[in-house]
């Protein structure tokens, strides 16, 4: 597998400063500053509506920021002159709803962007595709169509599809939120393996145990701002802010939170 580009190693893969994003009059992001170092795994947690998915989608410009700058793998994606397609080639994105191409097989899904964007020849694209499908544990599903795969399998194909482009950064937008509970483990397993290879990862997730175990740093967002960030042991284990504690108590032990509210 292609290792992360050394050009960015040691520097920051993602640098965000003064990021604002509004949808109409609704200000979703109210000034975000943070970075992801090359090779780092950062998990973004927070209540729904806190703007974490929007933040992620701004990084590869699926949402256009209202203000602020975002530098990814050395390119300023907020600069109108930048070739965004060229930058996106170096950023892998995994969606909550998988978004596999239903008219293509698993192999076809992993091959198409290699063929059309990277202009790899068919044999090379197929070799890379098979390699990546094997890596996510789906070597036997190459000729299955998305509708024939379980949610967990579809999401792993989606990860293989992103990896086949040889990205320098991987973005994960709640990758396990649409999965049946018993399928979550497979996807998290693949992501854990990916983190071990030194891939730079920015992960929006509700899986606290994954964040605790895999993340180098956890960012807690609420109300469109970063409330606190730091090593998982501190942010999840011993949060400094009341909002973080409230959120964590609800996520980690919903039953206890309800009992607490009832009293």
């Amino acid at each position, binding site marked *: 597998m292609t290792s992360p580009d050394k050009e960015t190693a040691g520097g920051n893969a993602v640098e965000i400063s003064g990021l604002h994003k509004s949808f109409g009059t609704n200000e979703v992001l109210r000034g975000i500053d943070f970075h992801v170092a090359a090779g780092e795994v950062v998990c973004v947690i927070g209540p729904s509506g806190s703007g974490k998915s929007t933040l992620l989608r701004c990084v*590869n410009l*699926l949402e256009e920021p209202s203000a602020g700058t975002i530098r990814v793998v050395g390119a300023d994606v907020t600069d109108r002159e930048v070739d965004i*397609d*060229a930058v*996106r*080639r170096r*950023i*892998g*994105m995994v*969606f909550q*709803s998988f*978004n*596999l*191409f*239903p*008219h293509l097989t698993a192999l076809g899904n992993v091959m*198409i*962007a290699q063929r*059309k*964007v*990277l202009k790899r020849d068919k044999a090379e694209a197929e070799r890379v595709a098979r390699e990546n499908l094997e890596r996510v544990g789906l070597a036997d599903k190459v000729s299955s169509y998305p*509708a024939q795969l379980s949610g967990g399998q579809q999401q792993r194909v*989606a990860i293989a*599809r*992103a990896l086949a*482009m040889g990205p320098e950064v991987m973005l994960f937008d709640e990758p396990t939120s649409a999965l049946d509970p018993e399928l979550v483990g497979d996807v998290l397993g693949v992501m854990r393996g990916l983190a071990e290879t030194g891939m730079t990862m920015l992960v929006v997730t509700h899986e606290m145990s994954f964040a605790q175990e895999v993340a180098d740093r956890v960012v807690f967002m609420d109300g469109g701002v970063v409330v606190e960030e730091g090593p998982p042991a501190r942010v999840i284990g011993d949060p400094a802010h009341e909002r973080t504690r409230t959120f964590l108590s609800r996520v980690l032990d919903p039953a206890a939170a309800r009992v607490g509210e009832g009293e």
Partner: protein
Amino acid sequence: MTAEPIGTAASGGMSRRRRRQLSLGGQYGLFVVVLVVVVALADWGTLRLNFANWEVAKSLFPDIITIGLRNTAVYTAVGFGIGLGGGLIVALMRLSSVPPYRWFATGYIEIFRGLPLLLIFIFVGVGVPLAFPGTNIPGGAAGQAGLALGLAATAYMAETIRAGIEAVPKGQLEAARSLGMSHGRAMRSIIIPQAFRIIIPPLTNELVLLCKDSSLVLFLGITLEQRELTKFGRDLAGEQGNTTPIIVAGICYLLITIPLSLLARRLEARQRRGQR
């Protein structure tokens, strides 16, 4: 059943099931009576001579196939080809972010959907040669008929294709773009192939409509060799003073349209199964 059936008392001792049986029986009875009356009253000899005259029918072959059916197929195919290409272009203009493209597409669709197809045929066959003396629409009658059909089909298919493109989930475009595809590349490789799978059933229906509408070529000046099924049937019915040619021409249409309709229904069913 342990519970008392509801409504037993209200319907005067007659159960719902019994009433349904009676109603069904009545309808079948009526059907049989009508059938008997028709069979008894019809003059079968005259009917057979006029509508299913074997001698007349035999005299139609092979020309009704080699000229009539063939030309119907050719005019339909040319019209469908123009409509498909034109429809895709107009649909993309309709969805464009450039306002003048959208204005043109909307105008085109509204105009050509609002006009009778016959008027378009007369416009292409009579109006264009009058307006631009010396112009020749390439392909002769096939070109004229195909163009007239294509102009109208473009408007209908543009709306169908647009609906197909809009039916592809937004996440598909996002996934394609986030892999580094340009907007155009994503449309060509990801969105349009899916849109066409969605609209294959309505497009097949459009093909059936075009096949039938190709009969309007009757109103263009065409040579004997250019006659399609309807004109062929009408001409021979006149020559021979018999209705059989029209019946045979009708059967020829059904030979094309019924299999196409069945195909459309099957594709639709398959599609519904394929979606989760």
